[in-house]
C-alpha cells in the first residue's frame, strides 16, 4: 500500500513523463523529417510509455494517480528561460534527463522500496540512458551549425539553471524523498534494536 508521500512522488513522475511526451510529440510534428526527428519520435513514444508504466505501477499498488498541476518541465522553463532553437531544446533536454536519471537512482536507493516501484524505475532508467545518448550525438552533429563553443556555453548555462531549479522549486519533491529515506532508515534501526 502506498503512503501519501509515495503516491505523490509516483504521480509527480507520471505527470512529468506525460508533459515530456506531449512536448516532444508536438516538436517532432513541427520538425522536418531527418535523424533528429526520428530519434525525437522514439523519445516521445518512450515518455508516453513511461507515463503508462507509472499509471500501471500505482494501480498495482492499490491506488489511483493524483492529478498534479505542475511537472518537472514547467519549473525548468521558469528558471532556465525559454529555449529558442532546437540546439537549446536539446541542451536543456540533456541536462534535464541527467537530473531525471539521478532522481530515479535516488528513489531506487530508498531501502525496502516496493518491488513493483523498483521494476518500474529500472525499466525507465534504461530508456533514459538512451535519451541522454541520442541527444549527446545530436548535439555533436549540430557543432557545424552552431559551433562547439556556443553549445558548451548553452549546456553550462542550463546546468546552472538546473541547480537553481533543484535548490528552489523542487523543494516539495526533495522533502518527500527525504521523508521516505528517513522513515525507512528509522524503521530499519528500530527493527535492529528489537
Amino acid at each position: 500500500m502506498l503512503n501519501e508521500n509515495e503516491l505523490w512522488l509516483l504521480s509527480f513522475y507520471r505527470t512529468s513523463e506525460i508533459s515530456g511526451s506531449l512536448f516532444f510529440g508536438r516538436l517532432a510534428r513541427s520538425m522536418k523529417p531527418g535523424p533528429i526527428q526520428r530519434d525525437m519520435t522514439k523519445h516521445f513514444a518512450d515518455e508516453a510509455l513511461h507515463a503508462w508504466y507509472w499509471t500501471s505501477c500505482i494501480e498495482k499498488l492499490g491506488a489511483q494517480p493524483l492529478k498534479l498541476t505542475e511537472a518537472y518541465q514547467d519549473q525548468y522553463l521558469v528558471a532556465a528561460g525559454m529555449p529558442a532553437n532546437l540546439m537549446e531544446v536539446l541542451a536543456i533536454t540533456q541536462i534535464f534527463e541527467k537530473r531525471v536519471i539521478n532522481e530515479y537512482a535516488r528513489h531506487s536507493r530508498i531501502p525496502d522500496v516496493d518491488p513493483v516501484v523498483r521494476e518500474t524505475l529500472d525499466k525507465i532508467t534504461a530508456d533514459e540512458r538512451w535519451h541522454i545518448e541520442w541527444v549527446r550525438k545530436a548535439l555533436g552533429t549540430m557543432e557545424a551549425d552552431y559551433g562547439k563553443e556556443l553549445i558548451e556555453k548553452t549546456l553550462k548555462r542550463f546546468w546552472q539553471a538546473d541547480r537553481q531549479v533543484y535548490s528552489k522549486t523542487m523543494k516539495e519533491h526533495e522533502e518527500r524523498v527525504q521523508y521516505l529515506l528517513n522513515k525507512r532508515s528509522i524503521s530499519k534501526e528500530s527493527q535492529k534494536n528489537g
Partner: protein
Amino acid sequence: MDRDAVKIKIASLLRQPPATLRDETALTDLATDSFALVEIVIELQEELGVRLVQEDLKDVKSVGDLIRLCLNAGHGQVFSKT
C-alpha cells in the same frame, strides 16, 4: 522577406487570421502554454530560415517584438552568440 510575410507566418503558426494579430498583443496571450511558445518560435525559424538564441528572446514580449526580431535575424546564421 517583409513585415507582412513574417506576420502571416506567425498567424498561421498560431492558427489565427493575420488581421486579428496586433503588434501590441502579448505572445503569452496567444500561446496556450509556455511549451506552445517554444514550439512556435522553433517552427518560425524553420519556416523563415532564420536562427535565434535564447538571449535574442529576452526582450520579446509582443507580436511586434517577434516580427522585428525575425526581420533583423540573419538567414541560416546564429543571430546572437551572447
